[in-house]
């Protein structure tokens, strides 16, 4: 997330050809199984470019909304990144790292877009805001716990984000729709990943089953906050830019319910937490996360590597 990164995208798509030439879709017999091409998807750099050219500028409401979902992804990416080198198996280490990077990618896109309303870069927003200026929901800042807690959190997050991004692909705001269209495919895989692990932990040993039950008990209090409507979402829903979070609940309940039933797990009967993340009221955990996330950028402002 440096200036250097964004500058190479000045010409837009198609410039970062790091791949082996000539091994494309032509069915070339010398094509390799490890061919590397960057692909052609929407990148945060493309959004930054559109912002610089003045082609897109979100309204205050849209920017505030993008900030919320961007912060969700940013904080979760920071949390998941902590698993790198600590997961139970090397393969799972990389899987969680990939998911963290997907989340960070979504966050970069949403924050880049949000920042356009206030002349701020993604880095300004990520590294130079204070705790009460973050708009992420409480679920995303919950501690990793053991692997089962992380999977329980990931299960709720990915099914919520899938419903959200699916709905946002129909947004009247073209940039929100485009970021969501890219994100929904990645989140679909996150759903699958967490569902597979919920089934395996629940159906594995007594120990793994006890842990996933405990994991869900710890994170389930933060579900309701994800589906709370407020004035901002009401205005955006009326404008066709976003949807009311409450409208996503039925799909979430149905799909998570199917997996929970298959895993023979009950939805935990736990009271719901107060929430408030969308208004900048956070639990005690967020401060530590952003301290760790921001320290380098604040100690060395403008540093790049």
């Amino acid at each position, binding site marked *: 997330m440096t200036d250097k990164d964004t500058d190479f995208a000045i010409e837009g798509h198609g410039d970062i050809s790091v791949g082996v030439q000539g091994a494309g879709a032509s069915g070339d017999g010398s094509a390799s199984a490890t061919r590397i091409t*960057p692909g052609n998807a929407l990148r945060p750099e493309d959004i930054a470019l559109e912002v610089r050219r003045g082609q897109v500028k979100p309204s205050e409401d849209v920017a505030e909304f993008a900030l919320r979902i961007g912060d969700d992804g940013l904080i979760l990416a920071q949390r998941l990144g902590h698993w790198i080198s600590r997961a139970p198996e090397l393969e799972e280490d990389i899987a969680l790292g990939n998911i963290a990077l997907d989340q960070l990618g979504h966050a970069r896109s949403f924050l880049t877009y949000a920042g356009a309303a206030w002349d701020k870069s993604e880095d300004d927003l990520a590294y130079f805001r204070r705790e009460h200026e973050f708009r992420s929901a409480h679920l995303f800042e919950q501690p990793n716990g053991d692997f089962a807690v992380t999977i329980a959190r990931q299960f709720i997050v990915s099914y919520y984000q899938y419903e959200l991004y699916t709905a946002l692909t129909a947004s009247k705001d073209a940039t929100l729709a485009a970021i969501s269209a890219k994100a929904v495919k990645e989140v679909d*895989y996150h759903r699958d990943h967490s569902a*597979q692990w919920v089934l395996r932990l629940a159906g594995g*040993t007594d120990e793994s089953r006890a842990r996933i039950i405990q994991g869900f008990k710890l994170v389930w209090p933060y579900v309701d906050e994800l589906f709370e409507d407020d004035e901002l979402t009401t205005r955006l829903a009326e404008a066709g830019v976003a949807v009311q979070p409450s409208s996503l609940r039925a799909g979430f309940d149905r799909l998570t319910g199917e997996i929970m039933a298959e895993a023979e797990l009950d939805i935990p009967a736990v009271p719901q937490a107060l929430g408030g993340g969308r208004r900048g009221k956070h639990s005690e955990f967020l401060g530590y996360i952003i301290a760790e996330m921001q320290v380098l950028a604040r100690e060395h402002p403008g540093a790049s590597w």
Partner: protein
Amino acid sequence: MSPHGNPEEPASSASEIKREAPKVAATTPAEQQHHEAPWSLWEVFVRSSRGLSHVHAGSLHAPDAAMALRNARDLYTRRNEGVSIWVVPAEAISSSDPDSKGAFFESPQGKDYRHATYYTKSEGVKHL
């Protein structure tokens, strides 16, 4: 129904992945001990684009086939390398004996009549 539980899932992403993961059955204490054993080894074959063959990309550990496919996706297609993945239990692969290289592989050497080197290329024929 898929374990994913979504009949309306988009035709995107992991649609090539077989989702019918066999659910792990409830285990006896004896089997639990078995669970502590390391995950088994799988060989991964990746097809980089339509019309090409699957090529061996490497190996990985996974508890079962469904997870092996997902791990392969995460490990070997991170840089857009593939459109299809096969995973095979490493123990299911029979390989030639490295000590029999002479008997197995030296016979074709020097038999250049087995190569199409004695034909003259016809004029105007493309793609030869």
